[in-house]
């Protein structure tokens, strides 16, 4: 598989009045051409910061203190503002979380959708608007031509999100970043938008990075998954590997917290505790304080990645050969069983 984006050893600090927050602490991941990578994590895990770095859209008090982001032979971290402006909305585009506030309330949607085109290509207003109509129809806005002169508040939430998607794809970007695009929408609309994204991906042949805290959404759309916690990626793999053969206790917690029809328990599960303070990150594994499977070494050294398969790795000391065998939570046991039955012997798609 061809890699289109390669993030290595990314480290980002934020200067705040309370101190320096080490928000991203050594993050590694890559994006393959044509695939959908889901980045999953709690609020504050660093998912949004990571993807904003991909477009150079960090806040003014943020600083990249280490690492590289390779895209088409160049390092995005080292790009000038001019190069970044050329990149944004053109090669890499973003879809935002809240459709109610992402659109300029005082500008017609026709103009807003046509804007990226006019910014990056020499095209007349008329032609740009025609393109806008095409792409609006692509995302499912009916009667697009007549609605070019309408304002955002005249559309529903779901429609507005479609418009946001239209804005993002009008220049056929190579990478599409979706930052929790369905979190603010009703469940039924969620499904529609996810369907739309899959269609769009196929139609314009783009690669998607999808950020979410909802594993249920991941199941419907992702090819690969990376799980983030406290500024690091702690497990990554193909979607089935993560769902049915997860190895990191945090991933277990996320899976347990996601009720399914097969869940036997009568109480909703929540991972106890809260993420650590990143001004003064804990020594060792950042998850140790909330980890019922913690080992002594977790409090001293950070676990490295242990390879589970060519495409699946997890940073947990439990995978070290010296680690004791632990009794998996029932839900996880059930999943690993499904893994054994359905996937293990057949081999996973590369």
């Amino acid at each position, binding site marked *: 598989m061809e890699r289109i984006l390669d993030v290595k050893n990314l480290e980002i600090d934020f200067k705040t009045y309370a101190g320096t927050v080490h928000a991203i602490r050594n993050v590694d991941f890559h994006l393959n051409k044509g695939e959908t990578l889901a980045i999953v994590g709690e609020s504050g895990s660093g998912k949004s910061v990571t993807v904003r770095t991909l477009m150079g859209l960090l806040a003014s008090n943020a600083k990249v203190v280490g690492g590289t982001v390779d895209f088409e032979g160049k390092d995005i971290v080292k790009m000038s503002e001019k190069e970044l402006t050329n990149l944004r909305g053109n090669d890499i585009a973003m879809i935002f979380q809240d459709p109610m506030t992402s659109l300029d309330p005082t500008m017609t949607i026709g103009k807003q959708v046509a804007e990226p085109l006019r910014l990056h290509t020499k095209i007349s207003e008329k032609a740009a608007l025609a393109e806008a109509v095409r792409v609006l129809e692509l995302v499912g806005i009916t009667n697009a031509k007549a609605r070019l002169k309408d304002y955002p508040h005249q559309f529903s939430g779901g429609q507005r999100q479609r418009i946001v998607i239209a804005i993002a794809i009008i220049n056929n970007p190579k990478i599409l970043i979706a930052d929790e695009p369905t979190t603010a929408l009703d469940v039924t609309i969620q499904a529609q938008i996810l369907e739309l994204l899959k269609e769009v991906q196929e139609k314009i042949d783009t690669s998607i990075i999808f950020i979410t805290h909802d594993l249920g959404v991941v199941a419907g759309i992702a090819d690969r998954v990376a799980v983030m916690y406290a500024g690091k990626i702690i497990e990554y793999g193909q979607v089935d590997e993560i769902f049915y053969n997860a190895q990191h206790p945090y991933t277990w917690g996320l899976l347990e917290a996601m009720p399914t029809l097969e869940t036997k328990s009568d109480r909703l599960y929540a991972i106890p505790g809260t993420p650590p303070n990143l001004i003064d990150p804990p020594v060792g594994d950042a998850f140790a*304080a909330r980890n019922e499977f913690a080992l002594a070494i*977790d*409090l001293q050294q950070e676990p490295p990645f242990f390879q589970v398969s060519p495409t699946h790795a997890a940073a947990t000391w439990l995978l070290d050969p010296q680690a004791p065998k632990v009794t998996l939570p029932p839900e996880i046991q059930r999943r690993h069983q499904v893994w054994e039955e359905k996937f293990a012997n057949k081999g996973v798609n590369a």
Partner: protein
Amino acid sequence: MADAKLSPDLFKRVTVDSTEKEKITTPALTFTQDAMRRLRQNKVAVVSLWIIIIIAIISIVTIFITPADPNKGNLAYTNLPPKIANWNIPGFNGYQDGINKYAGLGKNVWFLLGTDYLGRDLLSRIFVGTRVSLIIALVATLFDLTIGVSYGIISGWIGGRVDTVMQRIIEIVSSVPNLVVAILMLLVFKPGMTSIILAIGLTGWITMARLIRAQTLQLRDQEFILAAKTVGETGPKIAWRHLVPNLSSIIIIQTMFTIPTAIFFEAFLSYIGIGLPAPTASLGTLLSDGQKALQTQPYQLIYPAIVIVVLMLAFNLLADGLRDAFDPKSQR
């Protein structure tokens, strides 16, 4: 890859104290403490507060002692420029346009800020004037506060037709510029401290009433009020226990903004002659007298002007600081 030299002990299971996980590391602050902390960090606001305190202290102290009698004029000393003892500091050496105005007046005669056209010590008059202006401003503001807050709470809390009528009344009253109303009132009452206080107080409450009403309307529909009601708390009790604490920040901030407006009003009314009667000293009368002598004795305008500007500036900056401190989302 794991280092093969790791001791097997390190791989023992450990239990982590779950209460540790829930502990919040920074001490909890109440809303007020948090706001005060933010305020303290705002150096400009702190300096302003100190300036106000110092001026207030001076005003109180000078009730008992002043360098000279502010109301007694000595015709031998009219229009003397500022002089500090017998030092020769430019601007403070008793010279004006090259002439020593103190010639022949005796060695120990000097006035720090000079004298006015009746021979009264300007410094003493400024002390008194500041005190008078401050008293008027504070009492008038208190008036504003009481009327405005009550009006706003009643209007916002009861709502419905009462609210509509009360709002219409405000619209009508505010259709006349408040200074004009104040002037009209002063024409009816005789000039003096009480009438000025009334005039200012009865015109300035509208802004506060509007703000309080808006906030009350917003709070009334919030869930914690509903929660209080479901627990059985009654109207006035809810108003006292829940509304007022939430309104307190607006009240304090708006009060801080009203004071400089009141100072300005008094100054202006006295300036155009319908404020305090002579020989009372207030910042307004001082400015009025000073402006008449501007071309020949500019210091008579400049020093009172400095005082009033500093006062208004200090209150405005403090109010700004308070507003930022109480509302952290108002990005500064």
